[in-house]
């Protein structure tokens, strides 16, 4: 044949990769699932969390406190009003309402308060609340601290009347300095972004990787493909490149989703305790690159070992469970990570992502360490996939 031909391995790899990309992006289900989980899940969840944080903050700021028998302690009432607490008369069924969550906390002044105080005994107030309600906790803490402050002020006044310096009763002076930079607090929100970044890198290529391996076997299109001049390793690399492309798209979309939301969405004014700007986005991509390359190779390997899409999915569920558990465990450990952890895939990336979010620059050495193992594993997995493609047993069964 005298027509022009191109017979190089890179050309064939390119042909395979291009075909697989077209095939993947025509699969509506795969693309929708991948992109929905990527774009929607993370940012939407974060929006919910931020709103929750904001609502709790608002509750503290505009605290309203139902009071029973306020007339017993006019000085306390005046103090609370000075602190901008809105005082309301308590309804008769306030205990019920606290249980159902309608009221956070109710202040009940003892019937004998005025009499006790007149006799020089401590006056008694009762606080009613349900501490098991997360949303009420901020209000409870605020009211308790207001009452403590009043207690101190009152005591100081009495000491002054007796000619004693207030310091006598307060030998310990506690001054707190919060060393959290704006970025390093808000651990939950931080965790969410890092987790979803990882999640996208791990899951982004799953459906496509299985479709192009187990799916290819299931459709009986692998056998004819292996009669063409494409070598097993070329086939493995071509398919891998296509899945990496999808995976990278999923990661970029997830991160862009976070970026755009934090930048432009009308977020509640919580004084967002971290930054996720273009610099952080760039650092995320750098940190996640080895996973974006590694996961498709592993997924292809698992897919190749399975005869059907279903079989592949069940084989994968264990792997994915472990992978997604690692960052959660790491977050709850809350201790400083040992140095060797940066070598471990997923763990290393999670640690580096957390640092990027805290606004730290990425240390070059640790970054290279976190690249080493995934890079090696990617190579091994690709060679293993090629080996499977060259085994006669891939032809067996549908």
């Amino acid at each position, binding site marked *: 044949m005298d*027509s022009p*031909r*191109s017979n190089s391995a890179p050309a064939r790899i390119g042909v395979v990769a291009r075909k697989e990309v077209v095939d993947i992006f*025509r699969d509506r289900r795969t693309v929708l699932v991948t992109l929905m989980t990527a774009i929607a899940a993370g940012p939407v969840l974060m929006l919910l969390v931020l709103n929750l944080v904001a609502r709790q903050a608002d509750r503290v700021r505009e605290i309203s406190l139902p009071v029973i028998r306020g007339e017993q302690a006019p000085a306390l009432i005046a103090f609370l009003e000075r602190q901008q607490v809105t005082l309301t008369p308590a309804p008769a069924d306030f205990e019920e309402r606290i249980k159902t969550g309608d009221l956070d906390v109710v202040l009940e002044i003892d019937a004998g308060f005025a009499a006790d105080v007149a006799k020089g005994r401590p006056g008694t107030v009762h606080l009613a609340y349900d501490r098991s309600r997360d949303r009420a906790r901020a209000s409870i803490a605020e009211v308790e601290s207001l009452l403590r402050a009043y207690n101190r002020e009152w005591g100081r006044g009495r000491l002054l009347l007796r000619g004693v310096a207030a310091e006598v009763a307060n030998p310990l002076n506690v001054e707190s300095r919060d060393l959290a930079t704006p970025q390093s607090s808000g651990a939950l929100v931080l965790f969410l972004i890092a987790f979803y970044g990882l999640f996208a890198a791990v899951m982004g290529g799953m459906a496509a990787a299985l479709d192009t391996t187990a799916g290819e076997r299931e459709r009986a299109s*692998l056998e004819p493909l292996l009669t063409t001049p494409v070598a097993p390793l070329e086939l493995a690399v071509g398919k891998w490149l296509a899945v990496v492309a999808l995976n990278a798209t999923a990661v970029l979309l997830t991160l862009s989703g976070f970026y755009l939301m934090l930048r432009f969405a009308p977020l509640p004014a919580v004084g967002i305790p971290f930054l996720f700007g273009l610099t952080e986005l760039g650092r995320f991509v750098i940190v996640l690159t080895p996973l974006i390359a590694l996961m498709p190779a592993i997924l292809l390997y698992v897919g190749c070992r399975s005869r059907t899409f279903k079989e592949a999915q069940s084989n994968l569920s264990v792997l994915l469970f472990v992978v997604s558990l690692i960052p959660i465990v790491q977050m709850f450990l809350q201790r400083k990570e040992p140095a060797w952890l940066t070598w471990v895939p997923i763990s290393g990336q999670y640690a580096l992502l957390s640092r990027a979010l805290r606004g730290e620059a990425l240390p070059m050495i640790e970054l290279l360490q976190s690249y080493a193992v995934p890079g090696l594993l990617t190579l091994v997995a690709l060679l293993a996939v090629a080996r499977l493609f060259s085994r006669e047993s891939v032809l067996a069964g549908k």
Partner: protein
Amino acid sequence: MITTQGVMKSFGRRGEVQAVNGVSFIAADGEITGLLGPNGAGKTTLLRMLATLMIPDSGSATVDGHDVVSDRYALRRRIGVLSDARGLYPRLSARENIRYYGALQGLVGDALDARVDALIRAMSIADIADRRVQGFSQGERMKVAIARALVHDPQTILLDEPTNGLDIMSIRALRDLLRALREQGKCLLFSSHVMQEVSALCQRIVILGRGQVVATGTADELLAQSGERTLEDAFVRLLGSGEGLAA
């Protein structure tokens, strides 16, 4: 031209299943050679070895002088294979399915386009060429699969039970195509368990039973050899039992 010499292949952990047991035959250019045998006779395994998908345990096989083991990548450019498994990519159009194989065979640019167009016309699937394969009928799928196998204009063509699942119109069209390829001087090896298929098309017939060549020759030679009057009787007689029909 295909030449096999004492080809053996066994499966199972200890090789207890002897699928192909010392097969020797020659399939010449310009002829359609029929590989006839009951199910389980080793036809598919033999074709897979010729298609370089499996490696023989012993014996040798060459296509146009290229060894199926040591020279497999060169050989894959010379053979077109319509294998037992003939899955297409459902999300790609017929044209894209054919193009993919053409590109893997190293065709590029205008040559690739021209070749794909020519095959689409030859298979008379021009009206559905740009539709996704998803909803194609069996016959339409078969046409695409054949076009895909022929995209690089191979000299040797291996077909594993190509008429399976086709209606009579599609079978006739396929026969015409195979005859046309024979006229071009191609070497065609065609496996089937249906005698009428083989007798209608093939110049030479190789009868396989239990992994071995039972008889070879033209239809007339086989009749003479067996002393029977119809090819069906000859087939059963040569296999030595009624298993050919039962299977």
